[in-house]
């Protein structure tokens, strides 16, 4: 699984691509926690390139979300493809993490000061 990172002042956008399932969920969790350690304000998961996520992957996000909460960092999920959006809807994880239609929307809500940097990209 590949994941692109974008650093904005105090915030990060992580853009994982492909599938997250049983096989790589543990690596995905490690990646999330590592990236989270660098974020001060917000971590936005840009899921535009994520094709599938299993319950193990959702657990990884859940663990990251708890870590974010205790570190005072906001974690948001944005730009889900329909399949992933359905997974979130069925499992009702859309109630657990704040979900946004786009990264811009997520930043606007979670880290407004990073928005200027985002728009400048």
């Amino acid at each position, binding site marked *: 699984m590949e994941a692109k990172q974008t650093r904005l002042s105090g915030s990060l956008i992580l853009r994982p691509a492909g599938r997250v399932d049983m096989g790589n969920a543990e690596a995905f969790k490690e990646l999330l926690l590592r990236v989270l350690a660098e974020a001060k304000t917000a971590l936005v998961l840009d899921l535009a390139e994520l094709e599938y996520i299993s*319950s*193990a992957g*959702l*657990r990884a996000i*859940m663990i990251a979300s708890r870590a974010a909460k205790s570190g005072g960092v906001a974690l948001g999920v944005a730009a889900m493809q329909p399949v992933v959006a359905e997974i979130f809807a*069925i499992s*009702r*994880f859309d*109630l657990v993490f704040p979900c946004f239609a786009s990264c811009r929307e997520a930043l606007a809500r979670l880290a407004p000061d990073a928005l200027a940097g985002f728009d400048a990209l």
Partner: protein
Amino acid sequence: MSERRRAAAWLYRLGAGRGRAAALVLLALFLAVQLGAGERLFAAPRLALFDSYERLLPRVRKSAPVVIVAVDERSLARIGQWPWPRTVVARLVQAITAAHPAALGVDMLWPEADATSPPVWVQAQGALPAELRDALDALPDHDALLRAALASGPVALGIAGERDGTPDHPGPLAPVRVVGAEPSALPSILPAFGSTVRSLPLLDQAAAGHGLLSVDRDRDGLVRRMPLVSVVNGRPAPSLGLEMLRLATGAPWIDLYLAHGAAQGVTVGQLAIPSQAKGSVWIDYTADDPRRFVSAADVLDGSVPAGTFEQRLVLLGIDAAGLVDHAITPLGPMPGVEVHAQFLENVFDRRYAERPRWAPLAEAGLTAGLGLLFIGGLPLLRLRWYAPAGISGLGLLAAAGALAWVRARWLIDVAAPAIGDGGVLVALLGGGLADADRQRRRLRRELERRKLEAARIEGELGAAVRIQMGMLPKPAALAQDSRFTLDAAIVPARQVGGDFYDFFMIDPRHLFIAVGDVSGKGVSASLFMAIGKSLCKSCALRGDGVPDIGAVVRRANAEISRDNVEMLFITLFAGILDLASGRLLFCNAGHDAPLLLRGGAVPQRLPGGGGGPPLCALDDFDYPAQSLQLARGDLLCLVTDGVTEAMNRSGELLGHQRLAAALAALPPAAGASAAVAQVRSAVAAFVDGAEPSDDLTVLAVQWRGADAAPG
């Protein structure tokens, strides 16, 4: 590996391990033997090595200072059988001395008088007519003729030395001055002969010089060295070649130098010849070369080109089959007279094969140097490089020996170092192999232990699966109730997982059903499943009457979340079916929505939304209850994602659509068991033998109505 263990391993590599100790002891022992008795003990391989130098890298014949006049087959054919009348020999000698040779060496002996000489013949006949006898007496004596010929030039006659035997007449010997030691010390240094075989005194005394024909024969019979001076009856006597050199240079005597109980060499006039300790010279051979030879027949005919003998060293000898005494040399057999010729060529080229005095020390040094290099270096390599590296080392040794021979004609014995260091190599290799074997055995034991461990864990996991399965209720327990049909199944994956289903009667009218799936796998998931299932049940049964399903899930969530260190979560669909009314109150915590089969219509998933996230995702979520009115014959099918995400060999997922299609194929009156069987066979057909990665759980419940007839 920890730092300490790494350090220990390095110390081991540098220290006594890997056969080093044994190799070091072996090297020390070998050195002691090599220095103490090496000259004798390793003589055979040493001589074999030197012979191979001679054979593979022989001397190139540059000058031709020596001519051999040979009594060969052709001469015998022309003159007649040997021995020839001495008149013929005298003519031959005369022909040579007349051509002004530097010296003539005679490799022949005439110990008896010529039987064909007239006076001798007359004596042998006894009574003869006086007239005939007088006529014969008037003829010259053959030996007198030969005597005259021998006296006509610088001729050296051969003498044969004998270790024992009757002493011959004490004839003249060349003057040898001994420098550096008492002459009485000579027999302990030089080869000594008890007696000699010499030509008739008449001939012996006529010759200007006298030299020994004897050569140094090694134990294996090979002639490798030429003694310069030997001892005859306590007196020093030169070899034939050396004596010829004395005659050629006109020197009145030969100086023999001795020091420290060993011969150093000789000088003849301006010429100095270094020798080995026992007064001999290693002969640096070329192959037997016919260009050295001139046939005696041609000399007698006068058909030899003029100048052939002019100022050259001439040897007279025999080279005819049956008569010749062949010397066996490292280059093969050659006539004895040619060995003397080769020696003289060595002197003329001033290039002597030599085993230097320091050679034994140098050889011990080579043994020690390469041996220590092996002991120090090889164990740092991988075992499979031992042999190539070791053989390269020995190859370098051989190359050094060959180089010393080619450049300086030094005979350095690298065979003994090769034997010693070969032993060191074998010891190291053995040590390394033993080490590797030990390591292999240790690894095998370790592997064995891990296998046992794995088997134990597998066994425990197997037990966990059995316990987990044992916790699930048996559908048959409720089969008697005609108001509904119910069936459920879990097909566990190889790795223990966290699926569960549950059903029980809360009271005679209300049926509780649940399907759950713990995220993750392994022991933690299965334990979590056990906790989740028990909590759900206890929450459902707590208090009096029929509980609110939303409240049941809320309570279960709160209790499970409390001790969730692993941060697992459980998706759960739980419902309470009123068997009297067909009303289902349910709560969906992040689980797949069930499929509803109604009256032959296309199976529909219950609409999503309205539920909540999985248990443990949000501690205090207010799970709402939802409601669904079932009609008679309606069937609800609940699955976990092991069904919808069953993967075939090309990586496709089964999906909701295929699942719905499979259920749509059921006959209209099918009950719960048929639905469960249909789902299982649909999954089995789809994955087609691919290993399932997740538990597969299906639960079907069909409401048949409060007053449905049994069966």
